[in-house]
C-alpha cells in the first residue's frame, strides 16, 4: 500500500457532473478536489456526484476537505451525492454524520 496523490476527473452523466476520485483523499488532495468541484459546478448545476470507487484511503484531513466541499455546496444550494464507498469508509461517513448531509448509494 503506497500513497498516491488524488486524481479528480469530471465527467457528466444524464446532465449531472460526476467527479471520479482516484487515489488518496488526504491533505495532498485539497487542490485536486477543490479544482474538480469548481469545474463541475462552473456551468451551474443542481447536484454533484462524488465517485469513491477508486479512492482507497480517506483520512481525517480528507474528511475535512469533504466537509468544506459540502459547506460550499450548501451555500449554493447544490445537492451532493456519493457512491462507491467501501463498507469501512461508509461507516466513517455515518459516524461523522457526513451521510446525513449527502445521499450515499452503492452504485452510480
Amino acid at each position, binding site marked *: 500500500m503506497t*500513497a498516491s496523490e488524488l486524481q479528480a476527473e469530471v465527467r457528466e452523466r444524464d446532465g449531472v457532473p460526476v467527479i471520479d476520485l482516484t487515489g488518496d483523499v488526504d491533505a495532498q488532495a485539497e487542490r485536486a478536489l477543490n479544482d474538480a468541484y469548481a469545474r463541475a459546478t462552473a456551468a451551474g448545476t443542481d447536484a454533484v456526484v462524488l465517485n469513491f470507487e477508486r479512492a482507497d484511503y480517506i*483520512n*481525517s484531513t480528507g*474528511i*475535512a*476537505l469533504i*466537509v*468544506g466541499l459540502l459547506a460550499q455546496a450548501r451555500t449554493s444550494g447544490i445537492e451532493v451525492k456519493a457512491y462507491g464507498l467501501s463498507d469501512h469508509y461508509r461507516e466513517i461517513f455515518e459516524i*461523522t454524520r457526513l451521510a446525513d448531509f449527502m445521499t450515499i448509494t452503492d452504485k452510480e
Partner: protein
Amino acid sequence: MTALTRSFRLKLKRRGPAADAGTSIEVAHPEAIGALEQAPVEIGPNDPLLAYFQSASEAVDIDALELDSPALRELKEAGVKLAIPLVSQGELIGVLNLGPRLSEQDYSSDDRRLLEKLAGQAAPALRVAQLVREQKAEAATRQRFEQELEVARLIQQNFLPRELPDLPGWQIAAYYRPAREVGGDFYDVIPLPDGRVAFVVGDVTDKGVPAALVMSATRSVLRASAGRLIEPGVVLERVNDHLCPDMPEKMFVTCLYGVLNPATGHLRFANAGHDLPYVKTATGVVELRARGMPLGLMPGMAYEEKEAVLEPGDSVLLHSDGIVEAHDPQRGMFGFPRLKETMARGAGGQELIDRVLGDLEAFTGPDAEQEDDITMVTLERSGGQTRMSGSSNGTVLADFDLPSAPGNERQAMELVERAVAGIGLQATRLERLKTAVAEATMNAMEHGNEYRSDRPVSIRVLRSPDRLRVQVTDRGDAGELAEAEEPDLEAKLEGRQKPRGWGLFLIEKMVDEARVTAERGGRTVELVLRLEGGRDDGE
C-alpha cells in the same frame, strides 16, 4: 605510470623471426645462445630509454639511437639491432629484441612491418597473461591474510572469559560481537581473592587489527593490576600509567571498572571515559556516573570512585558505544534514551541482552551491516518484585520508528497490519484499527513532532491474551493533549467550527479503548482492541 617505476627484464634473443635464412656462427653456438637468454637487460625507472620505448610507434634501430642510457649501452653490447616495443593501452609491457639477421643483411621495411604487426597483437595477449599472474598472486596473499585474521580472531576470543563466575543470588551474562573479524571492545569478569568480583568493559578507539592489538595489551595490564589492587580508581590509574608510554598516537581506551561485593550488593566503580552504565532500581533507570580520562592519553591521571548499592531485583548494564551509535536506514542513531527505555521495559540478565539485541535489530533493520563492536555485560541481583515483566506486558509483535513526514501514516498502517496478521482480526476490525493507527500516527507526526526529521514516531504492537495494544509515541513536549472539541458537523458546515478536528474523534470510535499518556519528552496514544484468549473478540 607503473611502467615508470617497474624495472624491465628484457630477454635478449638472438634468434629472431628472421632466423630462417641459413646459419650463423653465433646461432650455431649453443653456449652463446644460452648465455644471452639468461642475461636480461634491466631498464631502470629513470633511464631515458624507457620513455623512448614507451612513445615509439615503430621498430627502433638500436645502433642509430643516441641516448645517455645504461640500458641502451647494454643492448648495443649484447648485439641487439632492432627493438620493437610492446605497448598495450599506453603502457610499455615488454620489448621484442632482435640481433642481426642471419643473412647479415639489414632488416627490410617488410620485416619491420611484419614485426610491428606482430608486436601489435602480442602486446595485449602478454598484458592479459601478466594480469592473470598478478591476480593469482593477489588471491594467494589475500588468502594468507584471511587465515592470519582467523587465527587472530581465535586468539582474541581466548582473551574473553570462557565462563562467567557462578555467584549465588546473582545472574551474570555477557555478550560480545566484533564488527570485523577482530575488534577493539573487550570485557572481563575477574573473581578477586576476597570473594569480590571485578567487572570490566572497555573500548579501544578504531576497529580491526590495530584496535585488537591495543585491546590485548590493555586487557593483560588490567588483569595483572586487578589481581593486586582492589580500589577501582587505583586500578585504572595504574593501567593508564602502564599504557601511556606505548600507546600509538591518536589511540586511547575507554574503560569502566567495577568491583562488586556479592554479599552486600555494594558496587564500587571508576570510569575512564567509557559510556555510562545503567542501573535499574525500583524507582527507574539511572546512569552510574564517575569522572575520568580515557586510558593511554596522559600519565598521572586520577580516577573518581563512586559506589552504588544493588538491592534485590536491581540490575546493571555495562555496554559499549556500538549499541547507542548504531544507525537506522534514515541515519538516525539508536541513542542513549532508547537504550535506557529498553532496559526499563523488563528484566535484567540474559533477558536484557536479548531485548537490547532485538530492539537494535528492529531499529537498524535485519540486514544492516554492524558498524561497530557490540559488548554488553549484565548483572542482576535476584529477588524483589518483578516489575513490568515481559509476560504481564504482553508479547511484542512489532516495535519500529517512522520518520515524521507527510504520508508516512500509510507505512504505519501497513506495518501494523503485518504485525497483527496472526491474530485473525475480522476484516472490519482490522480496517478500523488501521484507521486509528493512521490518525494517531498523523497526530504524532504533526502535533507532537511538528514534522521534524530528528523526531521519529515510535510504534509498538503488543499482544496479551485479552488485549491487542498499539502504542504510538511522539517526541514532542506538548504535554497532555488539549481537550478536543467534539466535532459537530452542522457547526462545521455553518462555519462555527473549523472543518478539521476529526482525528481524535475517529480514533475513539475505531477501537475499544484509546488512552493518551504524556511523559516528559513524549506522548503516547494507546489503542486497545479486546481479545478473547489472544483471538479477536469483536462483535
